[in-house]
């Protein structure tokens, strides 16, 4: 196998297994591995790919397909996607079967209660990692907080939100404020 493809598998497959709480949980490490360790791309490029992945419908973990493409073209994208989804899906497959067979086990509640705080910590760490990678300015921070509140408290459409924020940014760009 091409060494770059192998490197992609070595980076993403282990992270797949610790992505408790979803794709957001491992953004911090994906950024660290791809930008700092392997120097496949710059912080700014990473932040841009993160944005592209968020703008596309589908799991935000799809950023690995973009990173894979950036590193090794189509096969890179495909291999990276398999590396990020297969290991966690196998774990999910076997645990879901176990989950069904042991409906009353005390372990069930313990696992649910035990893994939730780890997921919470990871998700917030992921948000911080992206902010750090994009050197977020006060406007970005304010936008992030307002959006978080809107998503949390209302059922606002994601595309309406993207539209408003992009208009705001286009205006700021036009008046050379950012």
């Amino acid at each position, binding site marked *: 196998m091409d060494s770059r493809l192998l490197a992609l598998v070595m980076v993403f497959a282990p*992270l797949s297994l610790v992505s408790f709480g979803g794709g957001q949980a491992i953004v*911090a490490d994906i950024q660290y591995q791809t930008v700092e360790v392997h120097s496949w791309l710059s912080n700014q490029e990473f932040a841009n*790919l993160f944005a592209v992945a968020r703008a596309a419908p*589908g799991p935000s973990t799809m950023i690995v397909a973009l990173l894979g493409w950036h590193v090794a073209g189509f096969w890179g994208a495909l291999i990276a996607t398999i590396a990020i989804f297969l290991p966690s899906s196998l774990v999910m497959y076997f645990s879901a079967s176990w989950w069904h067979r042991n409906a009353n086990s005390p372990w069930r509640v313990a696992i649910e209660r035990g893994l939730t705080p780890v997921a919470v910590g990871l998700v917030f760490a992921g948000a911080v990692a992206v902010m750090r990678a994009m050197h977020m300015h006060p406007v970005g921070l304010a936008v992030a907080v307002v959006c978080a509140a809107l998503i949390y408290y209302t059922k606002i459409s994601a595309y309406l939100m993207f539209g408003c924020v992009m208009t*705001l*940014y286009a205006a700021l760009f036009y008046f050379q404020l950012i």
Partner: protein
Amino acid sequence: MTAFGGGTASWTYRELADKRGWIDQNDFITGLTFSQVMPGANPVNLALYLGMELRGGIGGFIAVFGLVAPAFCLVILLGLFYNWLSTFPITSVLLSGVAAVGVGATLSVGAKLAQVMLKRGEIASRVAQAIIALATFAAIGLMQWPTIPVVAVAAPLSVLTALVIRRIHGHG
């Protein structure tokens, strides 16, 4: 199947439970919680869980493929589009706007999970969970320690703590 915009579990629920009656509400909520705490992208895990619920292993595989394949194609298309657009300076400004929304979405997912965490179980269990969440965040978010060893320590420790607290409170 492609309309899973990051975290629209409610939409899936509407399709599978309300419209088609394939699955009941309790099954769905169990699957959702389980999908969130297990490793893996939440929508993918949920698709796998529900697919298995409906048609066993094959159902799970088809559900995951049905979710990942279109998402893969779309993101690659958008990525190519981005390569073409990245020559304009405004592109990166607009994308930083999208990324800011993305960070906001991530924060709200964290807040929802934290709310679930802090609203159930005994006081001791809630305090323990809050401490573990803060420690995990500090280690990875602030100290920038690598995720894998931190989770390898925190996850088993956290599950054991939960088990011990339940024992003490006499739940078996």
